[in-house]
């Protein structure tokens, strides 16, 4: 990635010297470990920016057994390092009303990064939290790699640069205050947005905002506040957008009022990725009440109308000739055969006549990462310019691809990032933004595109089907070999690192580029934290015909579930309790600590009735470690409980989850992310999958795709945030899924006495009547008043 330096006209400093722990030591500029360089940027009011040249993120120290790759250099190191050359453009403004503002070059999708970022700024700048405004930055191509929201990397990669910018802002405020108050900086105290001198005189940040401004941009050195002085970071805080969320004021893409951007929906093919050939009744549809435009694009036929209801009616009235999509006629059993064919031979286990072989094969079906807020985007493509509004985790590549599609210069495409109603990986791609741009161009008018739920579930990106085969060799109570071979339908990483250069590298012919990317992601995220002798984990991917992408926590939930189920099998074979076996085998102290925590708090081993059981599992990723202990009820009276239009099935009755993220910025937000991860884990294990039949996915409704609902939510959830174990934060957004899925799977196996071989466990039953494929979206009911309560 070094080829990018210089392309923006920015100069980057050479990498700093790194000591044996990987920490930057004193650099050429004489800046010490806590000292960093940054900028005061020219402006009418104070603007401070961070220089990242001295914030090389240290790799974790090696452990004196043979470490797996993620222990030395993981996905977050890759993302953090990819962000290094340009992050110095992160700027904090101090305003005359006493607030500070910051445009975060990331996407808030519910994970809470605007809140944690505001906390970090408030802490370093000594400003009350409610005086910090964090907005989302539009696409800024000059940021290169540094505008991708993924891999739970936001806080890991931005923590130090944001602190540096805030510290510079505070320092400049102190300098200005010193002149004004006639005292030295050392005598002044900044607190709560006010700087006070020992004589009691004081001045507010608002009053200083102009006085501290610099007419020129200059490089400055600053020391960060010592962690011991933290008053806000590490304390539980409510989300800064909570008030807007509970009053209906929080705006998502489809809530924005952009003049003349009328509601628009797309009529899609009856087979996955089918292509429209011709509209047979365009005039008829155009004559419908409210419909203003009908246009054929490559993904379907778009209908623009006065209301979404009328756009739905237009979509339903359309008669379109279609070319079948690439998986026409196939079912998920056919696809599974293809996956099995792509499985690579597993290496032979050592020939030891005394060793037992434990082996297991698992299938993980397609799953949907459809969010509540369906794929949506507003596009205005007119007069050689385009303006886009959408929830986007990779806005730079979106801007580049849209410019290419429209035949415009990148600079003529403005891409605004809007807060999203969930992502779960879905918004790493820009499907709706690109489609809206095409529609707006075809109609010559602004459009507000929203995917119907049916489309979002059927056509939207999915977690690919995968198999995981595990072979382990056990001698007495020791594991000699642990092999795991994961084979998957291709996971689309063509968003690259968020800009066109790596995105194109992932788009080389025949999937070669994407496989390289997929293997890199796999290698950088997967590890077996147990002392299992010779450990080997491999990935093979096949078949690019599906719409896939990284679903929350990518490979880890499946890999970990397979892994931990086999750990339980090994424990049984070794005659050890699952918890004791894990304790004995874990190589890493921090993992042991969270495991012990959940075992203690969750009362591991307590006596439980037949048909119910506990399950325990661990995970390590995103610079953090987690453990989960669940209790599940698989008794017939629970499994068969009747709920209208729903799958009930086994119920997870209690969850105890412990997480150590290094430095927790906002324990309350972290707890929320773990609760969400637990809910995902339950869905992945028990209820949530897509069924491919005759060339298309069947699920077109939330009553078809069974994401966890209240009746399957655990009545008791206890999340324990471990005290800070590092001075650097780890990732939160995805960290709760893997251990939860694995623990539910293990608990289910123990409660039923049978290790499941496919997930979710209910995939074999179709529990709903499929909605029609033509028309592709269902009619809205008219009997809503019969169901009031």
């Amino acid at each position, binding site marked *: 990635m070094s080829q990018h330096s210089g392309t923006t006209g920015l100069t980057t400093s050479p990498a700093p010297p790194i000591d044996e722990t990987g920490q930057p030591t004193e650099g050429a500029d004489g800046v010490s470990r806590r000292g960093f360089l940054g900028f005061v940027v020219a402006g009418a009011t104070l603007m401070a920016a961070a220089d990242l040249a001295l914030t090389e993120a240290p790799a974790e120290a090696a452990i004196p057994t043979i470490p797996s790759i993620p222990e030395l250099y993981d996905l977050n190191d890759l993302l953090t390092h990819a962000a290094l050359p340009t992050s110095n453009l992160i700027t904090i403004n101090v305003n005359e009303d006493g607030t500070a503002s910051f445009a975060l070059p990331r996407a808030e999708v*519910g994970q*809470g990064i605007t809140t944690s970022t505001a906390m970090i700024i408030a802490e370093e700048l000594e400003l009350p939290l409610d005086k910090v405004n964090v907005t989302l930055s539009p696409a800024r191509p000059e940021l290169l790699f540094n505008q991708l929201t993924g891999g739970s990397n936001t806080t890991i990669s931005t923590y130090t640069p944001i602190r540096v910018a805030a510290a510079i802002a505070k320092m400049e405020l102190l300098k200005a205050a010193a002149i004004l108050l006639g005292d030295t900086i050392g005598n002044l105290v900044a607190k709560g947005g006010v700087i006070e001198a020992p004589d009691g005189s004081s001045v507010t940040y608002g009053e200083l905002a102009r006085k501290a401004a610099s007419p020129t941009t200059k490089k400055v050195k600053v020391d960060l506040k010592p962690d011991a002085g933290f008053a806000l970071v590490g304390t539980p805080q*409510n*989300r800064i957008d*909570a*008030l807007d*969320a*509970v*009053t*209906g*004021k*929080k*705006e*998502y893409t*489809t809530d924005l009022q952009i003049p003349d951007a009328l*509601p628009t929906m797309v009529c899609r093919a009856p087979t996955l990725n089918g292509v429209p050939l011709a509209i047979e009744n365009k005039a008829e549809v155009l004559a419908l*009440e*409210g419909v203003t435009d009908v246009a054929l694009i490559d993904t379907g036929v778009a209908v623009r109308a*006065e*209301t*979404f*209801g*009328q756009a739905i009616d237009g979509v339903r009235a359309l008669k379109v000739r279609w070319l079948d999509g690439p998986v026409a006629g196939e079912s998920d059993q056919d696809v599974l055969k293809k996956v099995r064919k792509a499985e690579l031979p597993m290496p032979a286990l050592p020939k030891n006549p005394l060793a037992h072989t434990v082996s297991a094969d698992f299938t993980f079906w397609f799953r949907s990462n*459809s*969010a*509540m*807020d369906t794929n949506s985007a507003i596009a205005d493509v007119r007069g050689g310019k385009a303006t886009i509004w959408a929830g986007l985790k990779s806005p730079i590549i979106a801007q580049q691809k849209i410019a290419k599609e429209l035949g415009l210069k990148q600079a003529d495409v403005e891409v605004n990032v809007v807060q*999203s*109603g*969930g*992502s779960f990986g879905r918004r790493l791609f820009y499907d709706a933004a690109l489609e809206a741009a095409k529609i707006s161009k075809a109609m010559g008018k602004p459009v507000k595109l*929203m995917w119907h*739920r049916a489309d979002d579930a059927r056509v939207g990106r999915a977690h690919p089907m995968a198999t995981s085969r595990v072979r382990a060799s056990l001698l007495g109570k020791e594991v000699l070999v642990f092999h795991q071979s994961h084979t998957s339908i291709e996971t689309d990483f063509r968003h690259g690192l968020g800009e066109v250069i790596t995105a194109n590298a992932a788009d080389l012919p025949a999937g070669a580029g994407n496989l390289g990317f997929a293997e890199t992601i796999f290698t950088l995220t997967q590890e077996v934290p147990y002392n299992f002798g010779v450990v080997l984990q491999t990935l093979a991917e096949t078949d690019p015909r599906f719409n896939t992408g990284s679903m929350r926590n990518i490979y880890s939930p499946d890999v970990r579930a397979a892994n931990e189920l086999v750990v339980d099998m090994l424990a049984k074979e070794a005659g050890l309790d699952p918890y004791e076996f894990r304790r004995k085998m874990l190589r890493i102290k921090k993992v042991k600590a969270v495991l012990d925590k959940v075992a203690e708090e969750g009362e591991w081993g307590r006596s439980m009735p037949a048909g119910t059981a506990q399950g325990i599992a661990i995970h390590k990723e995103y610079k953090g470690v987690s453990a989960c202990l669940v209790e599940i009820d698989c008794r017939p009276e629970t499994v068969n409980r009747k709920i209208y239009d729903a799958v009930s099935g086994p119920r997870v009755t209690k969850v105890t989850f412990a997480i150590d993220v290094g430095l927790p910025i906002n324990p309350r937000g972290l707890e*929320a*992310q773990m*609760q*969400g*991860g637990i*809910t*995902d884990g339950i869905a992945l294990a028990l209820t949530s999958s897509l069924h491919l039949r005759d060339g298309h996915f069947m699920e077109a*409704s*939330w009553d078809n795709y069974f*994401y*966890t*609902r*209240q*009746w399957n*939510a*655990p*009545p008791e959830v206890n999340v324990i945030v471990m005290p800070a174990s590092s001075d650097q934060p780890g990732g939160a957004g995805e960290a709760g899924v893997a251990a939860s899925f694995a623990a539910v799977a293990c608990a289910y196996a123990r409660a039923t006495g049978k290790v499941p071989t496919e997930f979710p466990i209910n995939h074999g039953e179709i529990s709903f009547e499929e909605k029609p494929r033509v028309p592709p*979206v269902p009619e*809205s*009911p*008219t*009997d*809503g*008043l019969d*169901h*009031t*309560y």
Partner: protein
Amino acid sequence: MPEQSFILNGETVTVDVADDVRLLWVLRDLLGVTGPKYGCGINVCKACTSHINGKAFNPCSVPVGKIGGDDEITTIEGLPDTAPEGQRGPNGLHPMQEAWLERDVAQCGYCQPGQIMAAVAVVRRARDEGRQVTDEDLDGIRNICRCGTYTRIREAIRVGEASM
């Protein structure tokens, strides 16, 4: 075009639109009231849950022509005004909204207006039946939250119930 009139958050509104357009689109696309969210359009996800004459309903599944001039529609925007002044919390909101803030329920927030409107109706229904909200009531709430905020929703409903 027929004129449709009804009471929205305490004020009479009139809008020119065909009878069969579902109320959700009248609210969102024509009146700019965007608190009720679209999540499915088929009365499954419940993200648009609002109140009609004090009862929970889903405007995605009600043609506007079925709403009478005296019908009172309350969306999340109008919820605070339905609480007696003495019940409103530190932010001037309905006790259930305040409970949502106290428990910091929202993650992405998209489903939460609907969740809150459903929660208020669940508490009122229990009150009308002379009882408190039960675990079965909570299990029966169909509103989906894809972020998985169910744990805090359950806690917040108990808190909100206590101050309603």
